[in-house]
């Protein structure tokens, strides 16, 4: 399972909860504001475009009106007449007379040039240094795009005021557009007055960037020589006038083309600078121009960008706040928990006095309280256990003392019992030796019984003594080959084995064991002796004694098996009692204490001893020794330490 800290989890979730709506808000608000901005700016641009168009129309109307008025003045009519009838030598005279006031009108109306033309197309007067006093028909033939010629032809035909499109005047390196009006005298068409204007009038309106911000621009174009060309200087290209051409392969070119085709509309496109712009386009019927009012989308959407940036900044701040909050919250939870954990650790290391010092009123506080309570309880319980243990120790010490005293008593008793017995046996024998002749057969029999009795008593005392010695003397445990022990025993009783013709079978795989060697030798001695004794009473087959080993996980299990007469189950426990006897003295020699001693030794080793037997089927004596005996047991006392205490 992944190990994630509370702090991390909380930070993650807090951030998620805080940032998700924030992100959604930023996204929505950004898109929304962009949309609104686009609509707004669009509207503004439309308004502006319309305004500008209107202004241009008005401007042109003014100019038109002025020219028409001028065309109707008697001065102009007179001038045309005079120039017409002047001929080549009278020309200068007429010119001198009329030029000043014509120039005056030119200047006052801000015309680049002013022409008086006769219906044949001959230029009667030109205010500027035109140099070309040719017929306008010739001009038209020479240059089919000549707007001057064009406007002349149109006026000639329509006999009404006409306006040309823009053209580029090479001579003056500027834009030129012509307004012309027919001149009538008394209902007769006598000629035309044509005024030439540049684009400064137009430029006046497009130069005003009010409402266009930093990147807004008005582009006005005319189709000249089949190319779409700018007729005014642009904000971002002051030399654009008749120099910048807009190709149909470009976005803006397409847009301007539409405008020139009398279409209008708005969209976002790429302009000639490569910038993305929002633009509105329309046709200017005056002068037959196309107009686009555009503004960089960067500028348009700047407020949205700003909003987003600000919101993002706020989010960052929020993140910091949220993370701090999360950390704080997590701390407030994890700190007491850590404290609790640490306290547990301290306690488990052994310091039972440690308590968790958490006093908050919440669930963790409760947990801490309960924990402390539990530890208190544990301490109490432990104290009780210690008490009990001490009691037990005391009892154990007492028991040991009692056992020791008992052992000492048994030893002393048997020792002291022997002395008088010794006396009885000895003196009975002396009696027999010294007074043999003086005592009759019966008397001698009595003496015999006395001797036999004391001998039996001696044997009993020997057994008792042996038993008490086993209890008193504790030898250190050593690791020894069980085979060695058995071999030693066999050596000791080989006389009996030979005499009884006992077949002895010993297991090949006898292990190394840890035990009290001397005492375990006693055990094997007793068991094997017993086995031989009882096997040899079997009259049907050769006495056979088998010594074997059973492998067990936690103990060493040995057995001594005989083919004797067997032991009934009801006696299986009794045989291990002191002085127990299943058969009369006359049948078998007493083995009373042997099994009792064996059991005591095995018990002291922490093992078990038991019998598997049925009458008539021999007997198997099993005993087990734990494998995990320490080499030197504490509480072992060597009687040598005690001075003369028997």
């Amino acid at each position, binding site marked *: 399972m992944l190990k994630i800290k509370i702090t991390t989890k909380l930070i993650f979730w807090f951030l998620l909860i805080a940032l998700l709506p924030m992100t959604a808000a930023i996204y929505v608000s950004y898109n929304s504001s962009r949309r609104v901005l686009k609509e707004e700016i669009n509207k503004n641009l439309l308004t502006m475009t319309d305004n500008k168009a209107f202004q241009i129309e008005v401007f042109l109307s003014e100019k038109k009106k002025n020219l028409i008025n001028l065309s109707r003045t008697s001065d102009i009519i007179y001038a045309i007449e005079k120039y017409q009838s002047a001929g080549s030598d009278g020309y200068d005279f007429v010119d001198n007379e009329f030029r000043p006031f014509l120039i005056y009108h030119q200047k006052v109306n801000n015309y680049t040039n002013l022409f008086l033309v006769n219906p044949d197309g001959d230029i009667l007067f030109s205010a500027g240094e035109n140099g070309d006093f040719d017929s306008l028909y010739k001009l038209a033939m020479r240059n089919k795009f000549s707007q001057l010629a064009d406007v002349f032809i149109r006026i000639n035909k329509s006999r009404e005021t006409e306006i040309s499109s823009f053209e580029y005047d090479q001579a003056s390196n500027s834009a030129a557009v012509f307004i012309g009006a027919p001149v009538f005298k008394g209902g007769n068409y006598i000629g035309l007055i044509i005024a030439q204007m540049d684009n400064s009038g137009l430029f006046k309106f497009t130069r005003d960037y009010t409402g266009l911000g930093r990147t807004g621009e008005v582009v006005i174009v005319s189709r000249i020589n089949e190319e779409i060309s700018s007729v005014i200087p642009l904000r971002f290209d002051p030399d654009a006038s008749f120099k910048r051409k807009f190709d149909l392969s470009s976005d803006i070119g397409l847009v301007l083309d539409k405008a020139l085709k009398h279409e209008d509309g708005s969209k976002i496109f790429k302009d000639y600078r490569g910038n993305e712009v929002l633009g509105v386009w329309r046709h200017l019927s005056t002068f037959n121009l196309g107009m686009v009012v555009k503004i960089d989308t960067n500028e348009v959407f700047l407020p949205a960008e700003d909003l987003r940036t600000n919101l993002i900044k706020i989010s960052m701040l929020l993140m910091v706040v949220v993370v701090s909050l999360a950390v704080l919250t997590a701390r407030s939870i994890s700190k007491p928990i850590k404290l609790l954990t640490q306290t547990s650790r301290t306690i488990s290391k052994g310091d039972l006095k440690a308590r968790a010092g958490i006093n908050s009123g919440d669930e963790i506080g409760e947990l801490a309280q309960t924990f402390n309570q539990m530890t208190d309880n544990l301490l109490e319980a432990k104290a009780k256990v210690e008490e009990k243990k001490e009691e037990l120790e005391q009892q154990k010490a007492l028991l040991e003392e009692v056992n020791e005293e008992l052992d000492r008593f048994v030893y002393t008793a*048997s020792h*002291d019992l022997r*002395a008088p017995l*010794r006396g009885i046996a000895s003196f009975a024998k002396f009696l027999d030796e010294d007074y043999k002749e003086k005592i009759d057969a019966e008397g001698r029999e009595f003496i015999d019984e006395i001797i036999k009795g004391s001998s039996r008593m*001696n044997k009993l005392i020997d057994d008792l003594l042996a038993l008490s010695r086993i209890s008193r003397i504790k030898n250190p445990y050593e690791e020894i080959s069980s085979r060695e022990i058995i071999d030693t025993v066999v050596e000791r009783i080989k006389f009996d084995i030979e005499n009884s013709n006992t077949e002895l079978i010993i297991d090949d795989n006898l292990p190394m064991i840890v035990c009290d060697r001397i005492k375990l030798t006693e055990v094997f001695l007793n068991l094997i002796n017993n086995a031989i004794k009882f096997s040899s009473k079997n009259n049907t087959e050769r006495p056979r004694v088998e010594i074997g080993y059973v492998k067990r996980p936690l103990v060493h299990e040995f057995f001594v098996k005989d083919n004797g007469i067997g032991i009934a189950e009801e006696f299986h426990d009794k045989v291990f009692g002191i002085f127990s006897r299943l058969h009369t003295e006359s049948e078998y020699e007493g083995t009373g204490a042997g099994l009792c001693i064996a059991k005591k030794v095995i018990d002291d080793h922490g093992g078990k001893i038991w019998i598997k037997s049925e009458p008539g089927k021999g007997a198997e004596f099993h005993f087990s020794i734990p494998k995990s005996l320490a080499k030197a047991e504490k509480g072992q006392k060597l*009687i*040598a330490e005690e001075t*003369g205490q028997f």
Partner: protein
Amino acid sequence: MDKKILIIDDSEQDKKIMVRYLTRAGFDKIATAENGNNGLQKFEAENPDIVILDTMMPDTVGFEVCKKIRELKGFQRPKIVITTGSIDAVDALRAKESGADDYCVKTSDCEPLLNAINKLF
């Protein structure tokens, strides 16, 4: 045998038995004492060749008497046998440390004692 024996033992019964068997074995010079002090006095008086010491006596332990005898100067060094009613391997060690030449158990036929004495000479 002309070896002089001193028996230091508080049991009348045991002394009687030992005297009988020792006499039968040929020892005719046998003295007795019934406790440690008297034993030492008798030793100084008789200067026996063999001393038979009982382990438990009213005033002292046989091992102590044995040590004391060994400390006595100016006497011929006797053979000392320590007897007891019950044999104990650890006591054999103690007997040796006290300076005894042997250690045996008291039986009704005194055989271990006689064997021990025979081994000494």
